[in-house]
């Protein structure tokens, strides 16, 4: 059997269905960035060693560089572009901006999504739980502290009325 040049893949990304024709050996990372122009998802190694390419699949942090699109049909994929809704930034995005938790901003999309997955399951996490949750995303700029603080700030605002 020969290797097909392209196969049909139907992905649900940020709540929108997309029907694509892509090579079957392209990872989700490549499809998001190259076939869907969702370049908010970054890459630092393509080997699962930095998690810079992190996205959410059914609300869980996944590595897009190791995920095969055909296996993700029917599942809900969230990228950083899907974090804001109705033109409003997610509380985590606001907290990251306010506290300077994004320096170069390269690990930021993966950090935000990983933190979102945490807050969605544990709205008021301890510092230790935050450290555990983001331990899979490398950051070289911040020393992580501002990121912890931003997650805590966002958590403190969840459930409080918007200002």
């Amino acid at each position: 059997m020969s290797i097909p040049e392209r196969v049909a893949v139907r992905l649900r990304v940020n709540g929108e269905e997309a029907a694509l024709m892509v090579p079957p050996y392209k990872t989700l990372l490549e499809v998001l960035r190259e076939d869907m122009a969702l370049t908010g998802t970054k890459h630092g190694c393509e080997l699962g060693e930095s998690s810079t390419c992190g996205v959410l699949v059914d609300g869980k942090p996944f590595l897009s560089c190791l995920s095969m699109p055909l296996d993700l049909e029917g599942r809900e994929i969230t990228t950083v572009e899907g974090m804001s809704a109705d033109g409003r930034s997610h509380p985590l995005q606001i907290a990251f901006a306010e506290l300077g938790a994004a320096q170069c901003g390269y690990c930021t999309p993966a950090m935000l999504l990983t933190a979102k997955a945490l807050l969605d399951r544990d709205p008021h996490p301890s510092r230790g739980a935050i450290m555990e949750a983001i331990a899979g995303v490398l950051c070289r700029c911040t020393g992580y502290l501002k990121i912890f603080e931003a997650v805590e700030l966002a958590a403190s605002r969840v459930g409080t009325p918007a200002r």
Partner: protein
Amino acid sequence: MTSSADDLSIVGKSLIKPDAFSKVSGQTKFADDLALPRMIYGRILRSPHPYARILHVETSRARAHPGVLAVLTGDDLPVKFGILPISQDEEALARDRVRYVGDPIAAVAATDEWIADEALDLIEVQFQTLPPVMSIEQAIAGNGEPIHGKSNVHKTVALEFGDTGEAMRAAAHVREDTVFFEGNTHLPMEQHAALAQVAADGKLTLWTSSQTPHYVHRALGKVLEMPMSRIRVIATPNGGGFGGKSDIFSHELVAAKLALVTGRPVKITLTREEVFYAHRGRHPVLMKVKTGFTKDGRITAMQFQSFLDGGGYGSYGVASTYYTGALQATTYAIPRYRFEAVRLFTNKPPCGPKRGHGTPQPRFALETHLDKVAEELGIDPVEIRLRNLPKADSRTVNWLRITSFGLEECINKVVEGSGFLKRRTSMPAGRGLGFAVSCYLSGAGTAIYWNDMPHSEVQLKLDRNGGVSLLCGAIDIGQGSDHILAAIVAEVLGVSLEDIQLTTADTDLTPIDLGSYSSRVTFMAGNAAKAAAENVRDRLFEVAARALQCDRDDLIARDHRIVRRNRPAEGMDFAQAVQLAEADDGVVTGTGSYTPPKLAGPYKGSGVGPSPAYSYSAAVVEVDCDTQTGEVRVPEVWIAHDIGRAINPMLVIGQVEGSVYMALGEALMEEQTFRLGLHKFPSLLEYKSPTALETPIMHTYLVETIDREGPFGAKEAGQGPLLPVIPAVANAIYNALGVRIDEVPITPDKVLKAMNDKAKRVGPKSVPAFDFPPLIDADVPDEWQGK
């Protein structure tokens, strides 16, 4: 003009930086995020040998491969280049010899990356391998063909300020130490990328994740043999730099050439492995430090020797070499000083500037050395530093001019904050506290290429509706330089951050800034921005004063208004003033430039080290050591930094925390090691960098000394705070376990080995024999004559 904090509405405030929302939304376009119609992909074939002669490169099979549009070899880009005019020793693609595993040899452009990779496999290179030089010792021994020129010695320095030999003989106490600092790398999360496009009229544009677009611009002109006016370089926001993107890289030149050859946009994104080969990171340095003291612990003389393992090319190495000896005397009042250094070529990826450029290694040597001396003299580690501090507004024996000096206050902050003096003698088993101090530059006082022009320039254009366009060559690499520029201009003009529209690092549009390196942007681009803003403000004041019938010196700009100082009701809106000025004399623009004062001393080599101002830092580090395994964890760090003035305290603290993080990585795990001529582990998994779980509690203290030459008194923050942390870790381990690890990184196997060692030490025993050139007996400033 100095401003008190009360007068300031933006400077000094922890405001959200202008690019923050772009970054948290994923909208920031890094170089690899760019794509153009008809874009093709470039890949580079790299040397599999640490050292070899290239006999033949056969590209016909690669050229014939379907989907391949171009193949380049060294003959297509024969002009040599290098970041320093003195070290023009690199080729975009090697022609005659390869000098490290990863040295570029050939390049292809193809319609996709699969095809490009296949084409690389079809290029056949015939090599004659040469015996590789993989260490300082091998480089000095020099058996075999020198890597460049007539020997493996790239650069030597031999300077003496005052007769140190005489002072050593007279000293009450003399100690000598030998230590080693292994090389490590920047590891920015973003892999370098460049995209080149040639317009129909032949003009070339290169987007690149570079800290130094101006230098890339110059190199492109030279290597492509094109007028710089036909080349546009746009630096994209850097996904981390740390010095790793401040050189000129093969892939930038190759992408440009491939675009010229094919007429198609060409993108090259390095793989993570290639980033390790691009390197230009921390030099491995072997050091010997010998110091004479009075019996109460005052330094009478110091002799410092460094041996730098430079890798295969020059890069910034001449500067790195001087930096290993430059800042000893800005931290301590050293009356007589001898500095000898040699940088050697080896067959490894070239080393260059990483955060702290050339100074973390001697800082590690000096601060561990002082701790040992303090113990021998029965003085506490804090006191011995305090007894040797230089003074504000002074010159060092090697002619470096100190302006503001906040080190003593930094020391007090961390010593008090941590309870260092009391707690260090009563730590529980396996626990220890260590202390160290440091100094760094706020921008190099001399440019990389010799010229009399400014180091930084800013142009402003005021919009008749009150908006301000700010153009500057500086590029934000995550440190927040966009914010600094915008905040300074907004402060001077009395408008808000949102009114400032930034255009940065585009050689067609923006005036020169030399780049985001050497901690220079806040100080130099900040001063240029301030001058530009004052320039346009003066013009607005002139027209406003006429309209208000008052003296222009009576006016201030604040809250989008230009008003009389003591009668704020009398005034006009900022936009109204712009309209008056525009009606009066056309488009309202202003420029500002910054040229650092000429500070170099009267000796050869004095160009490296001078800076218009120095930052200071002090740190206390606590360690928790596992006495069975030798593992070391850092639970808490106290760090104080003399920032001059914090333009944005939140961003400064971010730089300090990031520096502490990077220092802990270097102290405990990060290292580039080589085996069989290859980088042992060019991957993010095996090159160990700390994770979120290793983050200590950090107590950050900002000390403000309002430097007279910094913009609003500001000094640097990006690099200095890294420096004291590494020796403080080593000193803390000694406090905890009584062992000295005179070698960075301090890995658990070394700690355990030292614990079982009779001398309770792991580290180099000696430096290799090397004939340094005769010492240059340099003049010393008047205040040090006869001391």
